[in-house]
């Protein structure tokens, strides 16, 4: 189960297998500014500081270029962690919108 850490606060959450970074954050009650949640708008871009990710769908070059990927830009709505990872949001802080979810994020429904 890869661990996601969000710098600089150091908030960390466990990601499920095949879960996108965004799904993992929202499942734990966190939020930040996002858009289409389908890889089209590029609003959810963050900096990938440590670790590696893979993409669960083809991502348009116009949304995330190969150069951006190589230099650590990450599209959280489509990125799935391959290792423990650390990301940093751009110009905003992670918001905790539902602390109840953080409490029960480990609960499974089968």
């Amino acid at each position: 189960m890869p661990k996601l850490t969000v710098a600089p606060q150091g908030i960390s959450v466990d990601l499920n297998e095949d879960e996108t970074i965004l799904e993992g954050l929202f499942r734990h009650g966190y939020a930040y500014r996002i858009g289409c949640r389908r890889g089209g708008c590029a609003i959810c871009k963050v900096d990938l500081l440590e670790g590696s990710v893979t993409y669960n769908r083809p991502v348009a070059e116009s949304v995330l270029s190969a150069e951006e990927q190589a230099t650590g830009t990450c599209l959280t709505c489509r990125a799935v962690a391959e290792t423990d990872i650390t990301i940093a949001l751009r110009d905003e802080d992670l918001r905790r919108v539902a602390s109840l979810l953080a409490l029960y994020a480990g609960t499974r429904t089968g």
Partner: protein
Amino acid sequence: MAVMRMGYMHVKVTDLAEAKQHYANTVGLYQTLEQDGKAYFKGWDEWDHHSVVIEEGGVGYVKCGFKCEKPEDVADIELKAVAMGYPVARMTAGENPEVGDGIRVTLPSGHEIEFYSSMTAWGLEVGTHNPDAFPRHMVGIGAPRLDHALLWVQDVAEIEKFFMDCTGMWATERVRTSLDDDAHTIATWLTIGESNHDIALLEAPESKIHHFAFEMRGWNDILHAADIFAMDDTPIDIGPTRHGITRGTTIYFFDPAGNRNETFSGGYRCFRDRPVVTWTPDQLGKAIFYHQRELNERFLTVAT
């Protein structure tokens, strides 16, 4: 002038199979052709061969087409567009499958807009002989027809001028910096006929598509559509709610590539002598989302 309607919208999608699933099974359009990495769809209440084209590879706007009543209407738009200095290219029948001769205008924003007067007839799903009110086995939200699009452009007044001077459209509503005569236009809603808008334009730093919309049969169908989106895990941007502008009821949602779609219903009938409605930026929240009365963080930032 006789542009009749927005006839087709053509967008790119990252995964054709997923997008086909969305437009066929969630939006409920009927696929009429698949060829060269593109899939063609129509709504049940449309009679032409297609109104939505999705193309694999990337995301966002490719082009849209407006259907004119007669070839002379296309020629008239060509004459005016050329005279006013817009880049115009002829397109021949078959260049777009099942679409006849026409012209392609490249707007100063870079958006390509096509005008044509014939497309292979397919027929209404309910037929035209003693038809029923809707298809008995409608799929997904059962969107009847393509309605309009909102484009991101840098200079709204400049693009509005093209549509008004060359195609005979007129503005029903605008967002302007003030109520003064010399105010700057931030957004405009342009109509061909009696609907509130066939195309709308919003000032933005890039040339993109904000959304394209399907006309629904009323608020009940909008609510039903939202239920279907929940079942299909279709991301909803906002809604069901109402726009202050146009008074239409709406849901904004996203296709699997992130292109924004809309279900739209309502509005009021428009006639050429109707006074233009003006909204000012201090009331923009209410203008866009009438109930919430504030813009969400996506309306002015998310487009493809």
